[in-house]
């Protein structure tokens, strides 16, 4: 796949778990817009998102975002990426407000009015004082999405964004994704087993990709 101005470049990407290999030399080029990452269960969609987000270190090869290497320039790289995923809160001792504050203190480029607007439109503006561990699956997903959509990052990685969302929230998210696909100001990579209403800029099928372990 050749792109004119790729934001993300992964070369000879390799990643192995202790018991199996996931990627054995994957080459990727991602540009601004919406990339729909598809593939059967266990093909490595979440692993790829975590590698692109800097949450996992590649076993081999490299990932660059606008020239920033995910390992060599780790801090600068991470400032420009955000991985939105996981259905069980990891920082489960925090309240929703503290969880947001923590992320806002780390990502200095955040659109606060947009965050508030997303919290309002998702009907979770009143959960700030509730522990994240007490939120429902859908509420936690909405909290993550509100933050993700407010961060001014170049690479946004969203893992199964529609899981647990109510119908209204799915509509809102689809509209937001369509708007961002048209604007093409940043690169969004999302995984979803549900069909997207918006036409993605690129569909990347891991089942048909070279460098993905069988």
């Amino acid at each position: 796949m050749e792109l004119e101005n790729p934001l993300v470049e992964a070369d000879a990407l390799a990643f192995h778990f202790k018991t199996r290999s996931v990627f054995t030399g994957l080459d990727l080029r991602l540009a601004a817009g919406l990339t729909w990452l598809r593939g059967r269960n266990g093909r490595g969609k979440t692993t790829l998102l975590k590698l692109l987000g800097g949450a996992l270190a590649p076993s081999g090869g490299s990932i660059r975002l606008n020239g920033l290497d995910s390992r060599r320039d780790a801090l600068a790289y991470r400032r420009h990426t955000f991985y939105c995923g996981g259905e069980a809160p990891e920082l489960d001792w925090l309240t929703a407000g503290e969880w947001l504050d923590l992320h806002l203190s780390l990502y200095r480029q955040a659109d606060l009015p947009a965050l508030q607007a997303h919290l309002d439109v998702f009907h979770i503006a009143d959960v700030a004082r509730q522990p994240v561990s007490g939120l429902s699956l859908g509420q936690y997903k909405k909290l993550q999405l509100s933050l993700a959509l407010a961060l001014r990052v170049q690479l946004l990685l969203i893992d199964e964004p529609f899981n647990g969302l109510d119908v209204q929230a799915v509509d809102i998210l689809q509209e937001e994704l369509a708007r961002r696909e048209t604007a093409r100001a940043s690169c969004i990579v999302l995984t979803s087993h549900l069909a997207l209403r918006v036409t993605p800029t690129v569909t990347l099928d891991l089942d048909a990709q070279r460098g993905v372990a069988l």
Partner: protein
Amino acid sequence: MVVVHPYIRFRIRLTHHALAQLLARLRGSGEILALALGPALLGLLAVSALPPMFFASCPAPLALGLLILHAIAMSLPVALLRSRILPPAVQAWLMPLPVAPGLLLRASVLVSGLLVAPLALAYAGSLAIWLLQHGRPDWLHPLRATAGTLFSLLLTWACACGLLVRGALPAPSPARARAGGSDVYRARPQPGWGFLWRHLFWLPLWRRGSLAGLRQAALLGGTVVASAVWMIGPAMLPRPAGALMTSVLLVLFVHEADDALRAQLARLQGAMAGLPLPPGTLGWRARTTLLAGLAPALLALSAAGSAAGAWTHTAGYAWLALAWTMAPLLVCTPPFTARGRMALVAFFMLMLCATGSRVWN
């Protein structure tokens, strides 16, 4: 044949499991503790019933108050063990089951009995040693001492049972949900290490049923009281006893704080992996902050000792030097193995006890 209700069998099995897990965890360290502090532990067992025996010899109203306080204090370990004996996940699963209050009480009586049994054995041994020895102290009246010890033990059992019953009941729901904040994200949080420390290391000590903060606060309070007793040197307690208490509690406090920090760092490894934090700096910054937090306690102890004239001889200088080097060494050395770690902790306890007991000698 007595048929035990399955709920009671389940609770007892849960307790056995929790205690077995705890013993397995302490096995490595237990050998070192037994080797290093064996005689001191045996001594502690021998005097375990001394406080209730002594309190029982006081005038009636004072004796009653002291015995009640002692019994409550002795039930504190059950409060600390409660989350192991009835883990939150099991509690959440049990909550909707129709367990009758009488059944819950019977199960709690039996489980607390299991937990208090070692204390009962220690009291029995201690009572036998003190009552059967020749030339026992004048204040020791066998009947009153036995009755006082028995009263304290039964009250400890009742407190332990109450704690278990309370732990198994649903938590009271707040009277009214606090008003949620709307428009709360117009102001950006102040970035900085203090903010991160609070969110990542301080709050987890106190939330989600964690007792780590409580344990550290209790050990710090114990260290302060013990060091005050050591420096003041009341007539009824020899100075070396104060030195031993201060030394052991100080090392345990630092070890507990370090242990909690290491556990939290391991917990954060996955959660913080993709976030924009300078790689590798979280650990050393957290350790530096912990040491900075320990410094005021050590400074206060040094100042109190200086005012009491403790640091005027070689033993005093040695104790002070050991106390100040112990914290960075415990916090900054890799954990190696659980046994190696405990060897280091026991080494500092022994050295501090040995030098501390000679400070006023």
